[in-house]
């Protein structure tokens, strides 16, 4: 099994690498299209800003490379958001994999934006969540969200109900950080490696 992590101008890639190590997996961190295309599975992580990251990906043609992946791909947090069609952040056209627009959290019910902290994941579907209980806690850091739609395979409530996990064909995305979500997150990463594909 050869895992690849997409290297681009977003933070937090190191944390993903360490989390994989803890569950006994290794990965190449690369922006080389050939290495990415030939990997068995790809992780597209990130903490960043939408317009500058899309610009960076386009300049290197990585936007097309990612959208054309045939193997299982897991987008994490900002990576998942970039896999949607559009983000309100910087009014940015994104990769268009999930037909969903990413919007800023409305400040309702006394919430603080960004959401920084642990929250629950519900309505879990697909084998990505095998062995994970409903209402399990994961760690979130984000200001923008994807609404609930046809690709939703998990939801979370923060002022409103939104998609905290998406799935379409070979593409998967989670809004939280499994690499920072204790044993629940490790299980999700393990499921992606062992059960998806």
């Amino acid at each position, binding site marked *: 099994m050869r895992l690849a992590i997409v290297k681009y101008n977003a*933070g937090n890639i*190191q*944390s993903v690498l360490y989390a994989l190590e803890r569950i006994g997996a290794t990965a190449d961190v690369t922006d080389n299209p050939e290495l990415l295309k030939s990997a068995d599975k790809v992780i597209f992580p990130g*903490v960043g800003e939408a317009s500058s990251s899309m610009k960076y990906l386009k300049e290197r043609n990585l936007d097309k490379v990612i959208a054309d992946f045939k193997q299982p791909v897991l987008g994490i947090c900002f990576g998942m958001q970039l896999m949607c069609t559009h983000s309100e952040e910087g009014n940015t056209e994104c990769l268009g994999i999930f037909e969903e627009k990413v919007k800023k959290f409305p400040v309702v019910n006394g919430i603080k934006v960004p959401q920084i*902290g642990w929250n629950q994941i519900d309505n879990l579907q697909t084998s990505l969540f095998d062995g994970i209980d409903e209402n399990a*806690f994961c760690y979130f850091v984000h200001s923008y969200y994807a609404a609930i739609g046809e690709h939703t395979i998990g939801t979370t409530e923060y002022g409103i109900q939104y998609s905290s996990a998406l799935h379409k064909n070979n593409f998967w995305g989670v809004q939280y950080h499994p690499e920072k979500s204790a*044993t629940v997150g490790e299980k999700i990463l393990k499921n992606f490696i062992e059960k998806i594909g």
Partner: protein
Amino acid sequence: MKGVNFLDLRDAGDPVELGALYAQQGADELVFLDITATVEKRKTLSELVNKIAHHINIPFTVGGGISSVQDVQTLLYNGADKVTINTSAFKRPELIHELSSEFGSQCVVLAIDTKQEEDGNWYVYLNGGRTKTEMECFEWAQKAVELGAGEILLTSMNNDGMKNGFAIDITRKLSTELPVPVIASGGAGTMAHFKEVFTDASADAALAASIFHFKEIGIPDLKQYLKENEIFVRI
């Protein structure tokens, strides 16, 4: 969701082992502050951060002597998720903006050491609490948030080490009037103090050190107690 955070692993044994143990026991975040950080020690600090980061599966915040984008880059590369800044940000507030535009606000935690003086006002202290300023705590916190700080780590020097509870009033003012999470620090002595800072001060997280290091309160017991008292915590 309310967080229970842990500070300063260096005090009480092997920081790598302790960090892993706390993560396993249900800590929601680890905060590692090296308050004596100097230039010569920085390399040691990043190596230690790297070792701890390999062994914990929860968010990891690191602070001590950070004064540039380069400092933060090194720590993030070694596995920190966020950094805390304090004196250097007060002396050069643009640092907050520089860090938040480079790494995002979620990465930048402003630590404030504050003390209530006889005039009733809470003032900002620098250099690990050794230097008083004329700046009021709320005013500085508000300015820092405008500049891009994503969280506030608020330590009350009046309460720190006293074990008589957190500083409720100033914590409540910051956590209810600022749009970012506030982590309360200083004064935890009993499990009821944690409950109080969540219910009465609306703190987003509470941080403690010695009571955990010296096993006066167990993390699983504390979280169970909070849950039974209807505080939204991760078990």
